[in-house]
């Protein structure tokens, strides 16, 4: 997102130098998981009416050498900001951190976020608090993530770390040099299906969507593929008609893609297809039969006694028969699987 700005990192700025500890100077890369951003956006919507921005704590993991930081989780922290004073609920931050760590013992404190891209004196103050010794992230630098939530503009994520700066010792507490570091939004395979569904609602007026069944999502994917093929063939046709400029690289790419179609004998395809489709259909059939049998078995179990008194014999014979049937079915299924 913020990758439009390009910057070169020669060395990471050093934290407060301490005798005995050798801070690393490797560049830092920040990876943000979408769920953290979702959470920040949600918090931004829930801010008090008079608040310009809200802040919160970032949690995540740090790679062993400290060069890559992954923001996985975050929680909101209450704060009040006036013209000349800022107040962060430290007690709340501490308690909440403890609660979060109980549920996610592998995550550590990374830094903090704010929902405005502005950096001011208060930012420096809070940054110094998060990067401090004791409760802070020290000796690692605290990461500051800003998500701009101005209406009518793109949502932009920027990440910073800071270096101490200050003319005198008193001024050093509320000043810091924020240095931008690169960040990227990364999502795993598990989150993909969730994101797919969520973004399915992005063009809808009511911003809601239902959960799709397997066949529906297949239909959508196929429709999309067909639309893409249509676009490509339109382009190819217009090149043939000498309406669009040709590109040999694109042509090569399309040829390579077409060459991926496997060369198999028609009879092989036919045979494999028939074998496989039969397997699939048999499994489907068996599953349905089992469902019916279970239903029947349950109905018999409760219906048996309505016709006569509770004699053990009737239920017995019926139970045995049922069991026998189930066993046969089970065996049938196993055979099928072995094939």
């Amino acid at each position: 997102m913020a990758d439009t700005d390009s910057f070169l990192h020669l060395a990471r700025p050093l934290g407060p130098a301490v005798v005995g500890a050798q801070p690393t100077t490797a560049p830092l890369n920040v990876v943000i998981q979408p769920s953290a951003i979702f959470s920040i956006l949600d918090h931004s919507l829930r801010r008090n009416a008079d608040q310009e921005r809200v802040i919160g704590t970032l949690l995540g993991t740090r790679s062993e050498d400290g060069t890559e930081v992954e923001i996985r989780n975050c929680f909101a922290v209450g704060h009040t900001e006036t013209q000349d004073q800022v107040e962060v609920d430290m007690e709340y931050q501490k308690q909440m951190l403890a609660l979060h760590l109980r549920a996610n013992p592998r995550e550590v404190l990374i830094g903090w976020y704010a929902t405005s891209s502005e950096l001011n004196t208060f930012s420096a103050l809070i940054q110094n608090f998060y990067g401090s010794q004791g409760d802070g992230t020290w000796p690692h630098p605290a990461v500051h993530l800003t998500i701009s939530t101005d209406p009518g503009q793109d949502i932009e994520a920027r990440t910073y770390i800071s270096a101490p700066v200050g003319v005198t010792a008193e001024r050093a507490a509320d000043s810091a040099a924020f240095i931008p570091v690169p960040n990227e939004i990364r999502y795993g395979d598990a989150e993909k299906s969730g994101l797919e569904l969520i973004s399915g609602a992005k063009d809808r007026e009511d911003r809601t969507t239902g959960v799709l069944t397997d066949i529906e999502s297949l239909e959508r994917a196929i429709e999309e593929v067909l639309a893409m093929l249509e676009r490509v063939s339109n382009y190819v046709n217009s090149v043939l008609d000498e309406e669009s400029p040709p590109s040999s690289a694109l042509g090569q790419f399309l040829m390579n893609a077409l060459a991926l179609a496997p060369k198999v004998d028609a009879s092989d395809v036919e045979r494999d297809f028939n074998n496989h489709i039969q397997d699939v259909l048999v499994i489907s059939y068996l599953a349905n039969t089992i469902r019916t049998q279970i239903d029947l078995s349950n109905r018999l179990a409760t219906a048996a006694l309505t016709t006569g008194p509770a004699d053990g014999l009737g239920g017995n014979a019926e139970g045995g028969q049922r069991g026998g049937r189930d066993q046969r079915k089970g065996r049938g299924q196993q055979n099928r699987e072995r094939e």
Partner: protein
Amino acid sequence: MADKLLKENPLRAVQVEALVVMKIIKHCSQTFPTTATGSIVGLDVNGTLEITNSFPFPVVDIPTLDSHHESTAASNFAAAAPRAKANTVYQNEMIKMLREVNVDANNVGWYTSANMGNFVNPHFIENQFHYQKDINERTVAIVHDVSRSSQGGLSLRAFRLSPQFMAAYKEGKFTTESLQKSNMRYQDILIELPLTIHNSHLLTSFLHQLPEKPRTGELEFPSNLAALSQGPNVPQAPLYPNFDSLDLAIDPFLEKNCDLLLDSIENHQTENNNYQYYQRQLAREQAKITAWQQKRKAENAARAAAKQPALPEDEWTRLFKLPQEPSRLDVLLNSRQVEQYARQVDGFTASVSAKMFAVKGNLLPGDVQ
């Protein structure tokens, strides 16, 4: 008054915020294959339960003797977590904290992860019963199926226990007789509520930038083949639609499903055998009682003939003990589970056969009808 309101306006649907979907997915896939559970908070608006936030339950390191049992022990622990006392405290504390940052501080249920739809078990029932009975009647259980979601479509479902089942479970009686009386079937245990996903305006705006902003203006043609696969103009795959559902690797999924189905059938078999055993036992005892009664009758007749006072005829209740009927609850749950698997297979084969015909049609162009 409140009760009346509840009865008139039952929960009809569940609306989940995108944030909750992401949080649940993250938590469940992180702990997979161990079961993960957590709590959800939200508001009830005219019969639609709006779920706006969630948080996981704390994990506890269980000291284990050998590594083999570790995952099952952790799984069991996590499955029991929603009704554990320590977690109720944790939950209340967390909700109190969330209230301070304007999150809807109202517990509306819990979530759990599942593997191929294997969530219908006593743990699940007990947790949801605990929630619906002790905490709030209007609570739901959200089930996220991790392995089905990796197949393409997200699997997220909302369940509640039916009032019928609640009443029966409260009494703890699941005998044939009580089932006949309440006319409850295994399909009536769980009620599934329709689930929709809702995005905030801010999020919608953000999603339009994911995975990246569309470029404006004409693009230049790539100079060579390599430029197509790298360089700034290479687009990332869109989030939607997800082409994972076009994947043709179907066998592992079906195989796993069949395995689970077989397991369930075996369970059913065991339960049936238990029931048969009970019935044999019952018949034997009853035969003994009848024999005893006849003997006593004959004795009494003899004593009457000898003008002696008759012996009491209902002494058998003290002498013989009828066996307890096994609970039908396990059978019911198992049946529900089998139904779940069967429907899963059904839905899956539908899309699989479509895909297979598509492949065949593609490889044998002459055959297309």
